């Protein structure tokens, strides 16, 4: 009986992660469109939310990787999944506070791996699966995306060079809406599935479904709705960093960047690679700065992101492991409840901290001043 309570808590926490995943990653699809004013901020997040919802129903190959490919399902307990999710949520909130577009996927995988390591030791982790399906795609995907976006941007400017500026902006803004929509769809196919995979893992751990089973329909529906809601909430801090912080983006660049992201993410989904849509989007945006003559890339911002990417897996894993030790130290349902209380307290603290340097749809496009938040509260203007 208490196992069912725990299972319910794990599913709720999983959906909470899905929500943070949504708002952390709105930027991937919409940052460039918002920056070039191809779409108004509110329209952008609404459109992205709907397409994420649709995308979540399109494919299940990534969910299968997460549920079966990374840890030995026989050694995973509900507590492990719960602790892993805690690590992922906290790491997502911390990076959001700093406006860093870090990978929600790595936070999730790191958290679950950390908790698994803490619970069962290193033999429970499928290292080969981790390296071949997560680490290698993570290292390569930003470079591939940057290459594709650089070539695309170069070609687009080469071809459209003789057009009048006004008509070029107008035309590519329309193109941008299309390509950004595709990225949203792609995000749904890739990221919504990660939570589906984790919840499936919890159901396997609880014995509710058999190991290697398909994801149940109600899990797909719940995850799709939650990631759409998160996307609609809009992670404005991250949108700002990606849209304004890395490169000053013009419509042709934004169009090329989003096209590159969409192509790379959809291809990777196809291969069951759980890659980071964030890293792909960031690589593409860097590429659209490299492909245009005279465009500036702020490498210090890119460098800071790079550092965050490298530490995401281990730190989310560390938080996941600590969370596991707390839960198993206290034991049973009480341990999980204690973890839950800590999770809520930390989340509330981070949210409260974010209020002093607010970023919302009104100031998301203000000139870049080196920080995620345009200006501290109380400091003019």
């Amino acid at each position, binding site marked *: 009986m208490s196992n069912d309570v725990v299972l319910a808590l794990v599913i709720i926490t999983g959906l909470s992660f899905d929500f943070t995943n949504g708002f952390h990653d709105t930027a991937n699809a919409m940052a460039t469109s918002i920056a070039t004013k191809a779409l108004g901020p509110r329209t952008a997040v609404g459109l992205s939310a709907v397409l994420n919802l649709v995308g979540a129903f*399109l*494919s*299940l*190959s990534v969910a*299968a*990787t997460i549920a079966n*490919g990374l840890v030995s399902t026989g050694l995973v307990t509900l507590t492990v999944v719960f602790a892993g999710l805690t690590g992922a949520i906290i790491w997502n909130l911390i990076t959001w506070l700093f406006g860093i577009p870090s990978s929600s996927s790595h936070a999730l995988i790191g958290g679950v791996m950390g908790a698994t390591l803490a619970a069962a030791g290193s033999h429970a982790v499928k290292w*080969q699966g981790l*390296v*071949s399906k997560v680490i*290698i795609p993570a290292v*390569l995907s930003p470079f*591939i*995306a940057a*290459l*594709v*976006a650089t*070539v*695309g941007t170069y*070609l*687009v400017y080469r*071809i*459209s060079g*003789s*057009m*009048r*500026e*006004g*008509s*070029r*902006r*107008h*035309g*590519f803004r329309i*193109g941008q809406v299309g*390509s950004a929509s*595709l990225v949203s*769809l792609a995000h749904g*196919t890739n990221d919504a599935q990660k939570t589906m995979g984790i919840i499936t893992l919890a159901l396997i751990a609880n014995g509710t479904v058999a190991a*290697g089973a*398909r994801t149940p329909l109600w899990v797909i529906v719940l995850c799709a709705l939650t990631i759409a809601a998160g996307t609609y909430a809009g992670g404005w801090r991250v949108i700002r960093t990606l849209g304004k912080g890395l490169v000053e983006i013009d419509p*042709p660049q934004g*169009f*090329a960047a989003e*096209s*590159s*992201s*969409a*192509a*790379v993410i*959809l*291809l*990777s*989904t*196809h*291969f*069951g*690679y759980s890659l980071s849509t964030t890293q792909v989007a960031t690589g593409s945006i860097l590429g659209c700065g490299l492909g245009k003559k005279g465009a500036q890339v702020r490498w210090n911002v890119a460098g800071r992101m790079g550092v965050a990417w490298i530490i995401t897996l281990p730190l989310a894993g560390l938080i996941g492991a600590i969370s596991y030790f707390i839960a198993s130290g206290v034991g049973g349902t009480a341990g999980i409840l204690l973890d839950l209380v800590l999770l809520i307290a930390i989340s509330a603290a981070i949210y409260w901290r974010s209020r002093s340097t607010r970023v919302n749809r009104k100031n998301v496009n203000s000139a870049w001043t080196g920080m995620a938040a345009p200006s501290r509260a109380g400091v003019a203007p």
Partner: protein
Amino acid sequence: MDRYGGSVAGRGCSVNGWINLRAIWEIVVVGLVAGAGLPALFAIGLRALGTPGKGRVKVSDDDFIGGSRAGIAIAATCFAVVLAAIGFGIYIIVISGHGAK
């Protein structure tokens, strides 16, 4: 294109080993074709669309339809190819993503 989609779908995610060079290679090549080639095609269409034609009285600065018949025909072809490619891509994702496992 068809042969390609078929072969990729067949392998799905049943790849063993530490690094799947073939998949990475395919992501780079198909990524360049779809992620850079299609935007270039869109740009060609946009440029053709903007080619000034005879019947045009006055073209404002952000008007992107020039009015040339040939231009419009080229543009329509380009946009149709782009849309078809996107549709094909999504179709492949859907069938392979639900068929395997």
